[in-house]
């Protein structure tokens, strides 16, 4: 097992290098001059522009820029963004907010998706099942920004149950509505995945064995159906954590959440290579780590996988 984990960590190295290189290259090849853009409508001061170019290594060829950036990562000095604040500080501000948002969304979709999926699976073909299936289809079909604005307007503005926008502190209470919007799409997938998995396991021979042992319906479901059904669901949830962290741009935009998505969007627009790459690299690492976590969980849930590797 330790060698397996070590191996997985070593696999992070090429992923890290590849992701940074690719993102850096993409930002580098964005059209327009970020320094010129920095002056906005004002006339460009050539001396200042040259100084800024030197400061951000923009006068160097691509490879040198990239290597200098790598160096800055390994010396834990990520430099400054265009407004002059250290990038490390920026990361420290935005990531906790988005992490809070993503984890709340994950809990929402996990708990509700599994509970609803389990009930629907156990009552296959009944009224509850049909209703939930149709509702989940609707949720999957509607784009997230439509759902976001809709919920923001009805729940936030008309009913006043939650604040329509998020304060700069982005407290847990502020984030409830955005988290639900963020998690809705995945919630529908989790629900359907759980339902299918439960239906499949209900007909398994070992469930019949469990009934033949004399276990009650509740015990059969809890001990024998649920755990076996959760294996594919956990995989999805783990992979989804990474997607939620990076994919919150739309939701953060709607609710004005001061998180990763907002900052990343601005950095891309202004061509701030180091900021973009720094944020994306952290996202890539989170993605890899959550996948590693899933694999370990997988082994814990399903011994057949644990012992075969």
């Amino acid at each position: 097992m330790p060698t397996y984990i070590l191996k997985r960590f070593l696999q992070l190295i090429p992923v890290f290098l590849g992701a940074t290189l690719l993102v850096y290259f993409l930002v580098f090849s964005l059209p327009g001059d970020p320094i010129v853009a920095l002056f906005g409508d004002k006339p460009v001061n050539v001396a200042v522009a040259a100084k800024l170019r030197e400061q951000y290594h923009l006068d160097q060829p691509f490879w040198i820029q990239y290597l200098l950036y790598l160096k800055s990562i390994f010396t834990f000095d990520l430099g400054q963004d265009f407004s002059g604040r250290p990038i490390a500080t920026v990361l420290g501000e935005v990531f906790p907010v988005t992490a809070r948002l993503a984890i709340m969304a994950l809990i929402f979709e996990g708990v509700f998706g599994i509970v609803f999926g389990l009930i629907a699976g156990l009552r296959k073909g009944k009224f509850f099942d049909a209703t939930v299936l149709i509702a989940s289809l609707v949720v999957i079909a509607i784009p997230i920004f439509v759902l976001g604005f809709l919920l923001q307007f009805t729940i936030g503005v008309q009913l006043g149950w939650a604040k329509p926008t998020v304060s700069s502190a982005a407290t847990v209470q502020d984030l409830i509505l955005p988290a639900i919007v963020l998690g809705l799409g995945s919630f529908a997938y989790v629900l359907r995945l759980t339902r299918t998995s439960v239906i499949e396991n209900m007909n398994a021979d070992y469930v019949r064995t469990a009934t033949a042992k004399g276990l009650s319906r509740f015990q059969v479901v809890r001990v024998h159906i649920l755990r076996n059904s959760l294996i594919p669901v956990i995989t999805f949830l783990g992979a989804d954590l990474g997607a939620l962290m990076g994919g919150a741009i739309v939701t953060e935009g709607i609710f004005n959440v001061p998180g990763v998505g907002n900052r990343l969007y601005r950095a891309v627009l202004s061509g701030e290579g180091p900021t973009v790459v720094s944020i994306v690299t952290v996202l890539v690492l989170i993605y890899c780590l959550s996948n590693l976590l899933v694999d370990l969980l997988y082994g814990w849930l399903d011994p057949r996988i644990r012992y075969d590797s």
Partner: protein
Amino acid sequence: MTDFITLDPPADAAPGRGEPVLEVRDLSVDFGVDKKWVPAAIGLNYEVRAGEVLAIVGESGSGKSASSMALLGLLPTNSRVTGSVKLAGRELLGANEANIRAVRGKDVAVIFQEPMTALNPVYTVGAQIVETVRLHNEVSPEEARIRALRMLDLVELPDPEKAFRSYPHQLSGGQRQRAMIAQSLSCDPKLLIADEPTTALDVTVQAEILDLMRNLRNKLDSAIVLITHDMGVVADLADRIAVMRKGLIVETGTAAQIFHNPQHEYTQALLAAVPHLGQGGTDATTEVDVTAALAAATHAEILSIPEDELIRRERENAAALAAAEAAKPKGEPVLELKDVAIEYPKQGRVPAFRAVEGANLVIYPGQVVGLVGESGSGKTTIGRAAVGLLPVAEGTMRVVGQDISAAKRNGRQLHEMRRHVGMVFQDPSSSLNPRLPIGESIGEPMFLAKVAKGAELQHRIEALLDQVELPRDYRNRYPHELSGGQKQRVGIARALSLKPKLMVADEPTSALDVSVQARVLDLFQNLQKELGFACLFVTHDLAVVDVLADRICVMQRGRIVEQGTRDQILRNPQEPYTQRLLAAVPLPDPDKQRERRELRAQLLSGAS
């Protein structure tokens, strides 16, 4: 119900004692299909006493499983059960859920067919037994653990502690079934329902599990209901037998009555259909006597048969062997393996696995060679390599005159070779494309090989359907509209469509019911005689090759351990492994089966 025959067992012959543990009266089971009730079992009456084994025998669809699952209310919700089921005088049908639950696992335990899927793969064997014990007994986890270990010991698992900690996939099939039996017995059930307990197992493992059940029956005082389609399994274990067909019990009686004097024609047909060793002797009068052959080959003593009887049987064997020596005319080999090793290629992190090593095998035109062995012995691997589905790692393999050992995967050479080779697969349901009418499935090889098209193709398809004795208008049917036996006929027709010189048949009948299997084997034999193709017949069933094969190769752990003419292998087996395999084949005859069991015990004790 005019054909309902009941033979009341004579009082002294009944092995059970006292009041019946289980009393079933007028038990009917219906399934709701398309808003109609379709009967699965009709008015069943039987009873089982303590210490008695009642076998319910029948083919698939006879209602034997459905009626037994109904005893415990284990049927799906679209079923309806009527009648009366009394366990030690207490009515089970219509009892409330809590009462039924208290009975399940405690008073009545069930052993299922497929031990891999019947145990939950994510819990250890120990945890699952402890769960059962603690459910019905107020004991501490530690006491439950001790009880579970004792049960695992009782079912003769070599290392109970280790088995306790193991997950189901870490045990072999036989060990899993032992663990399942241990779980069933953990609460001292009054009644044990065993639903095809050995069907999924190899014959030697099957023999061990049957031995175990026999021992347990003597040790414990449970009544046992044994559900099976295999008359051989029943012969040695059952005290009484109920034969079921289409939801009705057509005949009941003691084991001796059923086997020696079957009254109902269906019972007679069922017994006749069971393939057993000795059917395929060179002439019909001299039966292959495996018992005598084994006794002679191993110098084992059999206490239950007189000496001169054994000598007489052995003399018959010798005469038959000599007759078999007259070998058939040979020619250019159709399939030739020289020191062949076959590997499953490396896949990702899974290293290459060598499934067959040093195999030598020759099949001449018109010859049928049976390749037998237990699961994992590599017999299917050879069959797949012979049609180029697996690469040859070492040695040379010639198929229909071509050396394919170095042939490129999916290359022209293999393509060419496959025109002369037909293959019949094990599972007819999954080897036919469900979205193609069977006529197209049969015609596809001819169409692809460009040997026929248009009207000519249709004509050939009809001729093939005639050959496998299917009506011509079946050509437009889809596989799901056909029964298992019919589907396998289609599989055979497809394999024959290019008039192959070599046919590779991979367990073509093992998924079929015995009576269907007998008819398909009959057909196969006739076609082989008529068309004269050579055949590599892969099977685990020695009785099947006895009927079909000219030569037999016995495989064990990737190696061919013994080969020879059918009579050499069956009348004079030399390898201990072959002897064990032969001794493990159950016989549909209680007396002979007892002889065989004694012999097997001696072989095993001699080996250790």
